[in-house]
């Protein structure tokens, strides 16, 4: 699966979802196809889902809502683990990703 525009790219490899570029979509509706792709990974109930955000330079608050919503979906399935990979060189990640861990304490967050 791959969703690609001039500004961003989201693609999956096994149960890893990669995000790249700048995502400033206009709201929940605009993010819906991406959420759908993420939910299709969750539907297969893998042991571990990895969200690789290390190349996602910018995400607006509607996009943060998308990640939070997906985290809550994973939280409902105790057999599915989740790991979020971030980068210290991308400031929004150190500021906002900890909220995902507050929503779901079992979420493993690595910002390196």
């Amino acid at each position, binding site marked *: 699966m791959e969703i690609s525009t001039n500004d961003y790219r989201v693609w999956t490899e096994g149960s890893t979802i990669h995000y790249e570029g*700048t995502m*400033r979509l*206009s*709201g*929940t*509706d605009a993010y819906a196809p991406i959420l759908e792709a993420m939910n299709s990974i969750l539907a297969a109930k893998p042991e571990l889902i990895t969200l690789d955000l290390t190349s996602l330079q*910018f995400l*607006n*608050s*509607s996009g*943060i*809502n998308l990640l*939070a*919503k997906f985290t*809550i*979906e994973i939280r409902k399935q105790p057999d599915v683990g989740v790991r979020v990979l971030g980068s210290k*060189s*991308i*400031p*929004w990640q150190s*500021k*906002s990703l900890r*909220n995902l861990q*507050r*929503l779901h304490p079992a979420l493993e967050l690595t910002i390196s």
Partner: protein
Amino acid sequence: MVEDYGNTAAVNGADARRFDIKLMAEPLELSWHHCGVTSDFIGEYFSRACDGSVDPVDARHSISYMINEILENAIKFRKGGNIDITGSLEGGTFEILIRNLIDAHTAESFKAHLATLLKREPGELLLERIEENALNPDSTGSGLGILTLMSDYEAKLGWSFASGHVSEGVELTTYASLRLS
């Protein structure tokens, strides 16, 4: 009549480095694009103007994120018309004023929302709002912009509503400032 919510006192003084931009009324899709470009431009401009004690990468991002979130709201909720933006930097504090017109009904519901929001701890409210959004698949907006700015960026925010004749709408000025580090 003017009604203020939050921190509406301008932080930076007459000696601040500043400039103004006016975004013309355009169709939504084009305005949305201008929103990103404008936020990035102002972030880039002011991060290069900071002194050596400020991390330019963090400053560039924080300024850009803050302006983008406030401009997204201005574009979504405006009652036509231009959007005036004034950015300024003084002694490591970046401040932005964004002025646009909204209709009286939008103004009243936004005031009620702010009155509730300003009584609460923003980090706690942010998580509550996320949980509510997850339960309501029909919600179109996330409402997280202001809350992430207050909670994750420690931005100081204020809103001033100036109204005259009802048919003219309400002039909303959003004040936002960040201590850059």
